[in-house]
């Protein structure tokens, strides 16, 4: 069991990070902290992907004097996917932060509960 955990340490860390972010995003009333938790979830996904691309004892996928010998380099595909993920994560964070700024400007609060009450009062 212990060897299994050590062997899959990155995947397990990623799972714990993901759930940490998920719980905070679901249950924390503060909108800014929801966005922070969203970024934690993103990091978990990146950690998982990047660790999948690792191959023990090999070098990064930049061709050096050794030429295009596949057995010298790690898997380049997860690196490209993580790059895509980072860009999307930055964009979504920026967009949601702008929304939160507008919400704060309109309602004067970023607390979920107060926001629900204020919205109800406004709707009446």
């Amino acid at each position: 069991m212990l060897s299994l955990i050590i062997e899959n340490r990155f995947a397990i860390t990623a799972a714990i990070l993901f759930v940490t972010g998920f719980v905070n995003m679901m249950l924390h009333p503060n909108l800014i902290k929801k966005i922070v938790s969203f970024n934690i979830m993103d990091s978990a996904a990146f950690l998982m992907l990047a660790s999948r691309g690792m191959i023990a004892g090999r070098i990064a996928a930049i061709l050096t004097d050794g030429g295009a010998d596949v057995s010298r380099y790690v898997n380049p595909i997860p690196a490209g996917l993580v790059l895509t993920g980072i860009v999307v994560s930055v964009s979504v964070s920026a967009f949601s932060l702008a929304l939160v700024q507008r919400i704060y400007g309109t309602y004067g609060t970023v607390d979920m509960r107060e926001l629900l009450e204020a919205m109800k009062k406004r709707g009446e």
Partner: protein
Amino acid sequence: MKLPSCFTRWVEGEIGVPLRAEFEPLEKKKSVPKIGPSDLDDRARLDGFLRLYMKCGLIISVLLLAVLLAGAVALPAFAAPGNPTNNEVVRRYVGCAEEETGAENVIAGMILNYRGFDTFGESCVLFLAVCCVMLLLWATNDRLRDEAKHCEKTAPRDAILQANARLVLPCVLCFGLCVLFNGHISPGGGFSGGSILGAALILFAVAFGSEAVRRFFTAKVFNAVRITGLMLYAVMFGVYIYQGANGIASELARYIVLVIDLAVGLVVMSTMYGFYSFYTKGEL
């Protein structure tokens, strides 16, 4: 630039605003909010809902953790060469990247050639993100803009920051350009180089004030740079695909990778500075 007031109010969540026609602003109800029995009912219902939400959220999270951990333990071994992810796609990419794309950095060759449409989508996502931030924060946010202007006028510039910026900025710029233009033969590329250039712009704005940036990087230039970047990418990649993608000589393909890297760098740089500028000042 002032957006139409109806649109502003629509963004702020008002329901039933006609987006085209101008109309008289509705009179606001000035009745004093009183707490009647229905309000208390509502509050109790909200409390009950939030409690239920809390419980359901916790149960779902525990279930999710269990499923993820079970999945994590069942994965193939970490860093083993025989994993199913290390399949013929990797062999193809690593084996043929230099020959087909002219890039010694396999990752740059992969994201700009084999997966070029994907990266084009990414650039569009950045472009749209900055458009959305502009829509939400530009000019409609008068309070923020006035505050920023007031701060800029009254606060003295930090001498230590300015002296340091004079020292650091040329190095950052050179490093950013180096990373940007060597993306195909070394670690780096459009995204990292563009972020470094954007960081240099932000440092310049922080140290010398946004007026100094506006001398050469106005809203017009900002729009021109990011649209040029996206169009350059689209045209270069379109030409590349039209030519049959793999039929291009290695030397030419290398230039295409370089130009696409430059296009991505332009988009990323303007996006980074745009985010900073809109969040702090509400305008460029």
